[in-house]
């Protein structure tokens, strides 16, 4: 049960993130919700690689053989970098929208229809 907690936390983070995206009207909060989903996926990845009692996967002078998996950590790192790029891009979009429309309310930002 204790080892399942990170998975539950990851699922919870993702659900909160998606709910934020759907329910909040402020565009900044939509982007925040997306970041929460991303955090949930990252947590899932890292939790998948954990082995009870394992040490960091550095082989030089390692005191023991039991290590956590490095692949998922590399994947998480990559995803964090990608996440920063996407979040920065989307926040800059929101900035431009706010400047041009005078609002960042998702209900008001609806000039494309049909």
């Amino acid at each position: 049960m204790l080892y399942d907690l990170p998975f539950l936390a990851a699922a919870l983070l993702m659900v909160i993130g998606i709910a934020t995206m759907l329910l909040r009207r402020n565009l900044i909060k939509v982007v925040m919700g997306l970041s929460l989903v991303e955090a949930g996926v990252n947590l899932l990845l890292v939790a998948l690689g954990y082995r009870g009692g394992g040490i960091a996967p550095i082989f030089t002078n390692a005191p023991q053989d039991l290590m956590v998996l490095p692949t998922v950590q590399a994947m998480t790192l990559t995803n964090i970098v990608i996440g920063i790029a996407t979040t920065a891009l989307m926040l800059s979009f929101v900035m431009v929208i706010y400047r041009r429309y005078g609002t960042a309310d998702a209900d008001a930002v609806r000039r494309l229809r049909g």
Partner: protein
Amino acid sequence: MIPAFILQHAPALLLCVPMLGAFATPLLGRLGAGIRNAWALLAMLATLCVAGILTSEVLANGTLIYTFGAAAPSFAVPLDSGGIPIRIIFAVDAMGAFMALSASIVGTAVLLYSIASQKKNSGQDGYYGLLLLLTVGILGMVCTGDLFNFFVFLEINSLAGAALVAYRVDKGVAVEAGLKYAVLSTLGGLLVLFAIALLYGQYDALNIAMIASRMQFTLLDKVALVMLLVALAMKAGSVPMHFWTPDAYSMAPSAITAFLVVASQASLYGVFRVVFSLYGLALDCLTVGWIIIILGVLSMFVGVTMAIPQKDVKRLMAYHAVSQTGYMLLGVGVALAVLGNQDLLAAYGNIAMQGGIFHIINHAMYKGLLFLTAGAIFYRTGTRNLNRLGGLGHSMKWTMIFFIIGALAIAGIPPFNGFASKLMIYESVFLFNPLLSIIAMVVSILTLASFVKVFHSIFMGPALPEYAEVREAPLPMLIGMGILALMVILFGVFPQQVVDILVAPAAAALTDQGGYIASVLGGA
């Protein structure tokens, strides 16, 4: 003739060349606009050459494996790894090569066209950089044999695409479309990563062939399948996840829209790769096949009915793009539904598959052509509103001819390429289920009706006084459109040759899951 170095490293060069081009473009932009344009064009042409070399290699020698960081590119499985391919591997089979070739042909036409259409705009350094980066994303997605790598290229594709959609701010409206595209793509990308995590947790591998060889089709695999399908079908613009397409396609610069069509097709390729190569026969093929067929029929029908009342010419074409995606899903879905049954596969499944895949390249050509003509009209008149356009046939003759070619091709009229692939889909789907085939034909007729209306309101009628100054589009734009128009006609006149050389190997590569696994893992 071709140096052995290029032959050996073609899959890596396919990405290195446009990536170097992308990141050097802003630097060279400091030296002058002409040098930068020449550099971007050179990078794209070199990419096209590499894609051509790669395709001929793959068609001659079968699936090409390229292992990054290994002593030799073909060492997919290191000796001390216990039979697991631990490195990033590119597995370029006939399907991947086919997609890469079609993407780089459209990319070249789009770049040529951009040189004229972007001439008067600011910020061109970033524009060409992002265009080449989008190429990297597309080519990476169709070449990689590694799931996580696929996700990374998907994100490159989405980021570059969203930035380009919003590139010409247009009072903020383009940015609104860009934000919508970016949010949906990122959410889709995260769903893909979640699915990859589920698969990795069970099979300890990221390599598509490795996971496919260990596939158990447990409950978690089903969850992963649903997530992959939803996310990739959304990126491909299939109904009911199509709502971003009209916004993004209509607000992006026209050249970019033509290329976004290819970017969506890379996601469509992802759908096919997942269902055929990753899951394959482990699936309940009939059920998943029908799900894809239903997605396809919905896309066809909803797309075309939404297109008919549109007044913005690019928005109208965007809905048609959704509709045409449906044909590809329909053809390939039928093949998937009968995947386990060799008799039915031989009777009509293979033809349906080839029709669906042939339609991918045809769609990239004629839809690209149509968006480019819409862009040329916008470039000269400054409006996309069908009610305000008219009489342009007097002044923009070449654009009109290119538009006719594109419109007849999308409606499936011989001798253009749309007819060839649609006929293959009609014939084979009719044997599977006549009703589906009839729906497909009705949609084609509606498409024709819609384009007759567009043609009439843009080009016919007396020359309007407000467009008295309008001249023919500039030469680079005409060359860009001309390349695509030539391909549309060539593919329409010689469909059998194209199918035999390019399409049939691609379809065979997708249905042959065992062959794909063996080519990576080595006879496993």
